[in-house]
């Protein structure tokens, strides 16, 4: 038992990887689902134990194959990693029971075991990015998660899913290649790939090689920016989220972009920030401007959208803007707000897309005009949607309010009053697009096509209600989310020069 205790970081990657291999050979969807469910329920327990280890004894360093870093690959888990690991594996575990019914409807039976195989590979990649302390290893995991994501999206029932997947593949590969170019330039300058080692060697090299280091920063920022759908690099996201199988959209919105944001934060603060004065790097102003553009413009796009999933996808681009805004603010309150919004937005969007999946399960459409009066037919589903939607707006008492509170504090602390105003203004646009759908769902007489609609079975409804309840719970008790995010932000900013 104590042996396993020391091997927790690698278990995060090994378990879903082996699960994926086994799932690839299974023929019956039921068996593959049971295996996936077991693994996805085990992962948060491991992530929780890791978080406990980190809280008790500081960062955990795991040497792969016993090779000392920086020669061997190091898995390094500090508060921020453990936090992201727990978020991704926790949300996957909560959502997994809902997968069976939703996937049964949207994917042919003989393809379903492969679906679970791809999901487990995607989970491997995402958890791998979050756990590794090696820049090149992060690239490999980035591609493991991306390649499986392309397949998951292409499994969507509409033929346009294929095109969305192809476009994401092109853009995603360009992003990953940009990231490798950036890492390559850093390797040329420093001769190392270990993130902690990079941080200590970039500083001395800055005097003579600042141009190469800045180029590396640029390539890495754009590369990861493509993966996390930073405005205006978000063009792949709306189609991919709209045409992917409904459950896949819910999972991706809660995890894939969040992990990419984590990687950006890690590079920005722990690698570049730890080596060079952040004010010398031209990233903050750049990211702040793009974040504000995302918050406002993507929200406006969402207002005019008639497809519920696409509306939520544009909303995701806008919400990612809030997270990156926190990074751009570079102060304690701002970074805390950004990090806590990773969790809060993950929960809210998972609930919203899961509600959309439940709607599709019952009425086979997610076009808003055809969903008039859906609230009267599916009251619990729409109640959960409404609560999560209020969170998206940032209503006090929901977790969305907590994130925006910290972001506004961060903006005021910097003296950027117009920014604080824009955060509130973009929330009002969110009120418009969420309110518009809620009006259609609750206030109108049920449409013809909805006569037989009813709340989904418990396996879908319980995860949905749990996520909506979490949105309220973490809006009232911020100890676990904002508390840990605050500590993580403190150690991130404390490590910078």
């Amino acid at each position, binding site marked *: 038992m104590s042996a396993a205790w020391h091997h927790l970081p690698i278990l995060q990657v090994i378990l879903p990887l082996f699960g994926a291999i086994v799932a690839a050979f299974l023929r019956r969807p039921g068996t593959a689902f049971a295996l996936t469910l077991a693994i996805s329920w085990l992962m948060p327990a491991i992530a929780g134990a890791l978080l406990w280890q980190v809280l008790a004894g500081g960062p955990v360093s795991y040497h792969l194959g016993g090779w000392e870093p920086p020669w061997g690959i190091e898995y390094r888990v500090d508060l921020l990693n453990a936090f992201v690991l727990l978020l991704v594996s926790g949300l996957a575990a909560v959502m997994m029971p809902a997968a069976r019914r939703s996937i049964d409807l949207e994917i042919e039976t003989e393809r379903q075991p492969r679906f679970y195989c791809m999901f487990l590979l995607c989970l491997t990649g995402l958890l791998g990015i979050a756990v590794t302390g090696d820049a090149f290893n992060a690239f490999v995991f980035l591609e493991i998660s991306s390649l499986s994501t392309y397949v998951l999206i292409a499994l969507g029932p509409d033929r346009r899913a294929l*095109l969305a997947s192809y476009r994401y593949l092109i853009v995603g590969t360009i992003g990953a290649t940009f990231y490798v170019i950036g890492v390559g330039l850093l390797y040329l300058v420093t001769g190392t790939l270990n993130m902690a080692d990079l941080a200590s060697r970039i500083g001395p090299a800055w005097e003579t090689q600042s141009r190469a280091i800045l180029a590396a920063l640029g390539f890495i920022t754009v590369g990861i920016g493509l993966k996390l759908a930073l405005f205006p690099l978000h063009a792949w996201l709306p189609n991919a989220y709209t045409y992917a199988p409904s459950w896949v959209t819910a999972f991706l919105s809660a995890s894939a972009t969040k992990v990419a944001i984590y990687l950006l934060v890690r590079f920005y603060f722990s690698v570049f920030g730890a080596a060079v004065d952040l004010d010398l790097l031209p990233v903050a102003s750049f990211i702040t401007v793009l974040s504000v553009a995302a918050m406002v413009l993507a929200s406006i796009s969402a207002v005019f959208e008639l497809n519920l999933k696409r509306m939520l996808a544009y909303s995701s681009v806008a919400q990612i803007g809030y997270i990156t805004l926190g990074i751009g603010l570079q102060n304690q309150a701002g970074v805390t707000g950004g990090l806590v919004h990773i969790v809060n937005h993950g929960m809210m969007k998972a609930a919203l897309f899961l509600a959309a999946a439940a709607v599709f399960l019952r009425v086979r459409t997610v076009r808003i005009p055809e969903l008039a009066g859906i609230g009267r037919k599916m009251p619990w589903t729409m109640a959960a949607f409404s609560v999560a939607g209020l969170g998206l707006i940032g209503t006090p008492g929901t977790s969305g309010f907590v994130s925006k509170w910290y972001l506004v504090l961060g903006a005021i602390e910097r003296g950027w009053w117009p920014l604080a105003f824009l955060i509130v203004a973009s929330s009002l646009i969110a009120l418009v697009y969420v309110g518009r759908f809620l009006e259609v769902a609750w206030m109108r007489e049920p449409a013809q096509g909805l006569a037989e609609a009813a709340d989904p079975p418990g396996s879908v409804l319980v995860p949905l209600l749990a996520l909506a309840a979490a949105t309220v719970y973490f809006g009232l008790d911020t100890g676990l989310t904002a508390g840990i995010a605050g500590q993580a932000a403190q150690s991130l900013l404390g490590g910078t020069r």
Partner: protein
Amino acid sequence: MDALLSVAGHYNYVVTVFLMVAGLYIVTARGNLIKKLVGLAIFQTSVYLLYIEPGKILGGTAPVLDPQFTTYSNPLPHVLILTAIVVGVATMALGLALVVRINEAFGSIEEEEIIEKDRAP
């Protein structure tokens, strides 16, 4: 003159950057889904050069310790790029498979025709 010499001295980087930009240009400028993938492959391959070139030292041998040799090439970039090649092959296989499925579903691999067919039904 100095600038020209410096460029000539770093001709390996010139080749790398040329391939990089050419690949990226093909991806954006071509409407044929296969040609886009070809461009993507060129773009990815240029990065292999970026890693491997600086690892080679003129006159250096494989890093097997032997009293006869004192100069060794760096083996790590080769290992890294071996991994990157595997990733590139997987990406290409998946991309081509997607194009096959797109051709089955839409009856075309030209981006403009596909968009037109998408509007029609």
